[in-house]
């Protein structure tokens, strides 16, 4: 039960606490083990602003090379009451990142008795990605996430896209990542510029319909993106973040949405 004050420590930093307990996040770059194989990113996840907040959605398929391994993978992960992370890349690394972030934000909030700022949350994920570069360039742990949150201080939702080195880019309208994303990024841009309304002015139901259709389109062209299969109770993951926090659509809602939105 020792508590030492240290000028170099950062109060409320769970990552530092993990370090003190012997945990180590990823290894350093080992040039000898660099190789040329491409990292599989069998995924489509997307996020865009709509009238009341942001929507984050993803397909459910996990692949290894040409094999479909799993059709119920959750790629949109709750981090705290106001934040979600959508993942593309190596699941093991991405899930662990999400677990660290969850504990980091909650540990900060409870120990410092205030929520971490939106900017602080965004930088925390940057830091994890930066420290993961070694694994990423060795072809073992590349992750390309989308982070969406509602900033309680500015009272605005925010979407951030990250590259594998940890650089973050604030997204004003829409973003998508994963192997199926090239197919739908053009559609999102088209919808935003020439659709019936800009994305940021659309209603929640309109935004959900668009997200489900985009994922279905991505699955049409990308074998590593899973289709919605209501008959088998396989639905995409769809969540929204508003000033009240995040909310995931449940299976019943998604059954109804798929029934109407996927009809030709």
């Amino acid at each position, binding site marked *: 039960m020792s508590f030492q004050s240290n000028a170099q420590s950062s109060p409320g930093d769970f990552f530092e606490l993990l370090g003190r307990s012997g945990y180590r996040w990823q290894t350093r770059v080992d040039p000898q083990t660099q190789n040329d194989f491409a990292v599989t990113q069998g995924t489509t996840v997307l996020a865009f602003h709509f009238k009341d907040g942001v929507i984050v959605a993803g397909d459910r398929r996990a692949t290894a090379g040409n094999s479909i391994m799993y059709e119920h993978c959750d790629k949109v992960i709750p981090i705290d009451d106001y934040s979600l992370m959508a993942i593309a890349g190596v699941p093991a690394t991405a899930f662990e990142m999400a677990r660290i972030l969850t*504990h980091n934000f909650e540990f900060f909030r*409870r120990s410092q008795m205030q929520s971490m700022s939106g900017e602080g949350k965004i930088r925390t994920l940057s830091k994890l990605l930066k420290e993961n570069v070694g694994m990423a360039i060795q072809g073992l742990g590349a992750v390309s996430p989308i982070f969406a949150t509602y900033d309680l201080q500015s009272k605005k939702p925010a979407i951030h896209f990250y590259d594998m080195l940890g650089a973050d880019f604030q997204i004003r309208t829409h973003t998508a990542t994963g192997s199926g994303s090239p197919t739908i990024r053009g559609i999102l841009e088209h919808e935003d510029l020439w659709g019936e309304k800009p994305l940021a002015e659309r209603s929640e139901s309109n935004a959900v319909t668009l997200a489900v259709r985009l994922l279905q389109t991505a699955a049409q062209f990308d074998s590593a993106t899973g289709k919605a299969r209501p008959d088998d109770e396989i639905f995409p993951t769809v969540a929204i973040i508003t000033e009240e926090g995040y909310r995931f659509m449940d299976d019943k809602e998604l059954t109804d949405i798929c029934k109407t939105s996927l009809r030709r």
Partner: protein
Amino acid sequence: MFEEPYRWMEAVSNRHSYVQERLKLGQPVFSVPFDEGVLIVGFAPQRGKIFEIYDRIALGGVGHPADVERLRMTLLEMAHLEGFNRSAQDVTLARLLQFGIAPALKQNFEEIQRAPYIIRLLLVELDRECNPTFFRINYDGHWETFKDGTVIAGKEKIMDWIQKEIRALPFATFTLDKALEEVCRLWVESKKQEDGDGDDDKDFPKTLKEAFDQWYLEGALLSGKVERRAIYRTLTEEEIGKLKSSVG
């Protein structure tokens, strides 16, 4: 000193007297069940008596603020490391107490060269079936478990009196508003029990009006109705305002 057992026992006994004397002015922190969860509440001249520890665990403390803070951080670190390394379901209050702070507190108290912790803590947990468990732990590592609610206070006489009253009331059937009103009533009654004991707390509020005017009412609850993982929330200004108008 160590070659004579009597000297060691005398030193430990002196430490008990010293800590109890320092704790005397500690104001009661109540924790009681209500129909949707658990309430934890207390009046104090400054905030900093009630805290969230983990998803379903809350803490109340009386004593030296720096000691309460040190134990709060220890509990937070233990809970979050366990939740990260295993699962949130493995973070239970019984484990945190029994294998965490209780042995450490006892050891610290009996190592007579070290400064003792001047604290009394109340810990409460609401499990997934909405059953509450209340714990009270002393500065020497001794802890007790309660089913119907509990209280900590600087004076043992007051603590025992309130504990008896809590047991006699069906708090688990009360709404939040009713539970808050009853706790306030117990607080006023407990002040009457103190009368004439000659302690140096003459300037402390004796009525609810004085308490609301001069001190803070700090309160939080663990709600069994919340679907999120973390079920702790502080009382809102509206809830405190409503209480003030109903009992003031």
